[in-house]
């Protein structure tokens, strides 16, 4: 792989940029791989990357039905934070956040991680108590957060109206090293690094069946033919249930559309990420200048990836109320992404009833921020066959045992 740098750009400029090589190869599938990863989204690619980097496993194929990074990795609101309440969540999200800190350098691909700070507004007494609890937990989980005053909120985000007549801002949980990143670049950067390690990223290749012998996975059927493997990792947010069904078991999750929208671009006016759970809305400003706005999930299960209207209405109302300047901006585009949601809204990183088949799913509305941590934990599970500490609590047996990891107390809405 030829390294990216300002020097490389200057070199290529001299020859009209004709000399850039492919960011990732486009190989035909081999007959067999040590590990097949289904799903070339952020989580799947990160899994592959850490399989190679941490465990030296590079005979890997990453199979993607569409185009890499084309699922939720490419359609989320790019927020990165780790101010979670429960220990297992805080551990994996903070691992992810810390990996984002050096991701551009690790991948030699600028993913534009911008630790501009994330604040979650408290607008009711119970939210104050909830966030104070999170701040206490975070203090002993190695997550740097603090509960800040309304005045500090206003200083950090001057466009906010903290004296709204209905829900004045009473404080906020502030994570100064939370932020955003360029979502597509995360997938592209991992893809480039994986390809460089000799892994095969096979796009436009749909998995149609999971083949197993004697309860042990041996390969997959795809639209490009059968491919054998020793181990199979399924990382296909939104369609995890479908893949599980192919392998003959069920997952405790549902798929719903999560709504999002952006405004037209404007000059910089907001330097932090704000989430307002009481009024249901969150917003940040992209480097391009668009206000990036997240809404809720549709109340019905579906796979359409379409924007629907009732949720964005609720979201935009909340934002006009919280940020009066939003009123005279225009909505440029709205869309939906399919998220798979578990009973406790926490992910599943797990062994399955089929030996050597592993699933990483159920990140619900909060998957982007987890990508590197999720990949790190999944790679360990796949490589060793047993979960490491990061994923130990996220096995799917927890639903049989009743051992939930419920974050609903910390985040009432999509996050």
């Amino acid at each position, binding site marked *: 792989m030829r390294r*990216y*740098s300002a020097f*490389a*750009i*200057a070199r290529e400029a001299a020859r009209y*940029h004709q000399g*850039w090589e*492919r*960011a990732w*190869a*486009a190989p035909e599938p081999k007959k067999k791989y040590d590990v097949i990863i289904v799903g070339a989204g952020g989580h799947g690619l990160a899994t592959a990357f850490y399989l190679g980097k941490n465990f030296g496993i590079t005979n890997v194929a990453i199979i993607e039905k569409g*185009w890499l990074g084309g699922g939720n990795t*490419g359609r989320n609101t790019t927020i990165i934070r780790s101010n979670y309440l429960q*220990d297992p969540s*805080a551990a994996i999200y903070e691992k992810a956040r810390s990996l984002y800190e050096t991701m*551009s*350098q690790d991948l030699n691909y600028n993913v*534009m991680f911008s630790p*501009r700070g994330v604040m979650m507004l408290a607008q*009711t*007494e*119970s939210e104050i108590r*909830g966030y*104070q*609890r999170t701040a*206490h937990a975070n203090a*002993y989980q*190695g997550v740097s957060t*603090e509960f800040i005053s309304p005045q500090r909120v206003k200083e950090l985000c001057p466009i906010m109206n903290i004296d709204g*007549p*209905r829900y004045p801002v009473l404080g906020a949980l502030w994570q100064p090293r939370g932020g955003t990143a*360029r979502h597509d670049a995360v997938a*592209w950067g991992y893809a480039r690094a994986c390809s460089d390690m000799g892994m095969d990223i096979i796009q436009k290749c749909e998995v149609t069946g999971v083949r197993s012998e004697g309860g042990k996975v041996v390969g997959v059927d795809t639209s490009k033919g059968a491919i054998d493997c020793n181990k199979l990792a399924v990382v296909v947010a939104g369609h995890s249930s479908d893949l599980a069904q192919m392998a003959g078991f069920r997952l405790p999750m549902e798929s719903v559309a999560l709504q999002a929208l952006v*405004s037209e*671009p404007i*000059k*910089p*006016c907001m330097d932090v990420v704000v989430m307002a759970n009481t*009024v249901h809305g969150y917003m940040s*400003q992209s*480097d*391009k*200048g668009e206000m990036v706005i997240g809404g809720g999930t549709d109340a019905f299960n579906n796979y359409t990836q*379409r924007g*629907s*209207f009732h949720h964005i*209405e609720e979201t935009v*109302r909340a934002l*006009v*109320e919280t940020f009066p300047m939003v009123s*005279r*901006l*225009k*909505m440029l*585009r709205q869309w939906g992404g399919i998220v798979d949601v578990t009973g406790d809204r926490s992910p599943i990183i797990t062994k399955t009833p089929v030996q050597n088949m592993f699933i990483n799913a159920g990140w619900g509305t909060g998957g982007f921020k987890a990508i590197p941590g999720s990949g790190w934990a999944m790679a360990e599970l796949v490589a060793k066959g047993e979960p490491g500490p990061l994923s130990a609590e996220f096995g799917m047996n927890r639903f049989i*045992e*009743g051992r*939930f990891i*419920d974050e609903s*107390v910390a985040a009432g809405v999509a996050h």
Partner: protein
Amino acid sequence: MSTRLSNTGRLVNRSAVKNFTFNGKKMQGYEGDTLASALLANDQMLVGRSFKYHRPRGIVASGGEEPNALVNMGEGARFEPNQRTTTTELFDGLTCTSQNHWPSLEFDVGVANNYVARFLPAGFYYKTFMAPRAAWKHVFEPIIRQSAGLGKAPKEMDVDRYEHFYAFEDVVVVGGGIAGLQAAKAAADSGAQVMLMEQTTDWGGRAPVDGAVIDGKPADQWIDETVAALEAMENVTLRTRMMGAGVYDHGYITGYERVADHTPGDGRPRHRLWRIRAKQIVTATGAIERPLSFAGNDIPGVMLASAVRDYVVNYGVSIGEKTVVVTNNDDGYRTAIALVEAGLQVPMVVDARSEVEGELPNKARDLGIRVEAGKAIGKVKGGKRVTGVGICLQNGEGGALEEVKCDAVAMAGGWSPVVHLWSHCGGKLIWDETQAHFRPDANRAPTGANGEAFVLTAGIANGDMGTTEALASGDAAGKAAAKAAGHKASRKAAPKADVVAENAMAPVWIMPQNAGPDLRMKMWLDYQNDVKVSDVQLAAREGYESVEHTKRYTTLGMATDQGKLSNINGLAILADSLNAEIPQVGTTTFRPPYTPISMASIAGEARGEIFQPLRKTPMHDWIENNGAHFEPVGHWRRPYAYLQDGETVEEAVKREVKNTRRKLGLLDASTLGKIIVKGPDAGKFMDMMYTNMMSTLKVGKCRYGLMCNENGFLSDDGVVARMDEDTWLCHTTSGGADRIHGWMEEWLQTEWWDWDVYVANVTEQYAQVAVVGPNARKVLEKLGGMDVTKGSLPFMEWAEGQIGGFDTRVFRISFSGELSYEIAVPASQGRAFWDALMEAGEEFGVQPYGTECLHIMRAEKGFIMIGDETDGTIIPQDLGLNWAISKKKEDFLGKRAQERTFMTNPDRWKLVGLETLDGSVLPDGAYAIKEGDNDNGQRNMEGRVTSTYHSPTLGRGIAMGIIHNGPDRMGEVIEFGKVDGTMVKAKIVDQVFFDKNGEKQDV
């Protein structure tokens, strides 16, 4: 220069002059002008700067597809960025400024980017700015952010009003061109309820500009007659200034009506968002002309040929004195002809096709226009304004044959149907080789719940390029839509137009065909985002081969026009780079809205005080007028405390607790959920909903009950009263009333639909007052009426009767540990009853108390609070509430879940009381810290605080918490961590801090 002509302009009223300013410069236009046409009439071609390279940008289009001419508009509370001048009606007093430059439009420092553009190709920022690590946040990102963005952020609170309208229609026709008009007419003739919306101010679309003749009449006349006929029909709603914004599932369509954008401050709502449910939708949304890709095609003065024609014919504005027309089709000649007919010069029509014959080219030749076949523009000369073009062979590399002096270039690259609304809800497209465009595939339309198509398409939006064909498809779509909506289609024939024969266009995606990299770096695809032909080719070279990858890597089509001008040209370049066919490459996804709509219109009326519905109890006004410090609870606002003169909130709470414990307190408990469960199977149902046995509760008795979800977690609690043989009244928490009502309905409707149970939420039908304290009975006895003595109405019973002349239901329940009566009266009597209690209570020391006092008193008694002791992860067993879980019942919601291994694990944290050794108040949400770390390096914890208060009664901090093996560790001292890392020591104690034997409440 661009200027106003004296002899044309069908839409402007020259007798009505409108004054406006651009960058402080005073200008004049006419009624009927768009801001764009008025700017051009004042020779203001340069209107902005591009996103990335800050190149000079001029107006390029005449409608919603305009990527360049966006301005900051208005001032103060009516300021708005990114206003599209081509769709802004001119009005007197309009002020606007150009965007994205510093210090001025003419001299923009940002143009430095342009001089180093070669070093800033697509995606350059992914390859650099990586070192040192901290520089991204502190140096590079701020520079990029400042350079990007377009208009400025509004600063002041919006003073305008917005509203939502709702409509239900048989047929909604989007687009008021001739196809849309005919579709509406055909549908309306069948008797269907029809709405026709047009985004501009005028009906008829392009037909009058193109000189169409319909049924032997000029297009304008046919349009006027058709509109008049539609206006006369009662089953038709006509709306101009209204854009079809988005099509959603089940025939849901939003219409964005710009009611008063052109009359700011006249008192009408500025925008109106129509939310329409249509049985059938006809998209007659027209088409958008494509630019041609030649070097310098972004220099101000280069414009779409159709736009040049629009400005001349509609607004009487010439773009230049000498206009070179460059085309790959016959339609471009219409512009050349219109210009010459308006007295302007067309030095040359540059036609990329090798052979040029036919009605329109020959007419142009007859007018003396020089037509050059097989030629191309090699390069446009000029900086902030076109000064000439270099002509070359289309199939060459760009070697100049000659230079033609001109001050405008009109480019005609063929037409792309507006397929956005068709595509929003899943309609698919097919590639039309002849016209080189995507058009709707009628066989793969968006389908509704019944599997039938609910969107039809008509006119040029369907690829029906000829006037007669457009009218015919409009007619057919109107009839088909009416029929699908249940009406009998009319049998009137479609109108006919005079046919103008056109020869085939030739797809030309790059001009000249074999242009080298130097030229390709100057061929703009996306004018706003500065994406060039070379950028798309670079993306393909680097493996960003999916059209979505190319889009995201280059930002092609991600500007405010969402690729209306650039997408087809861009994906043709991509297809060429990949050696693929265009349909294989496919389009990116079309998302609502069609063009950007105001956020305010989405929010509608809901802002400020009416942002969300405010629920008020009958006592609300009294509470508001008596010093209430409110807190939001759901959509209610409840008094946290009542502040007396000079008091702080803390002082007020302390006073309220003491007064209630010593004398008499009143709580407005009206927000408490009240749900009636009634029917022959109500007892069975109650036993399923609650963990307790409720079916055996005797009439007249009350019982504290717990509700769990199917995972066993405690979700609500409250006192249940048995009203009669088949009726129970369930009290829920204030915040839980609607949720629990929905929960009950869900089970009844989805699981136990055959049970005879009826559930009604009567929360707002009753006002409820908690009369609490040692003097509670005295005040009731003073008011007189029913017997409220212990003998007649013991603890945990209820009775109906009169008190002080009010019809009441009196519940002897207590959440404070005091002698307490919760008294319900009809809501209409609530305020009067409250006043009567306050008056009668005066001699007994009555004072109202708020929610914080309520919380403290319950904590002093060790009563749990949903939301404090519970958080969705707590089972009743954690809270020592085993006594409230029936062991006799076979089943209840949560029973099986509570038998799961983790739920029965003895290591679960359990509820206890906590007292700090120093009497201080434990911090809210603090965790009990244990020695050592877990496998993830986090400190081990052994419990947490769930409720913590200063107890005015005991004069010290009290708390409840859940602690590992807590009930077995009474007296043990453990440590709680503060956020600053220091520790607080607290002793594990019984959770009941006050009146442990419950003597005070049972008197």
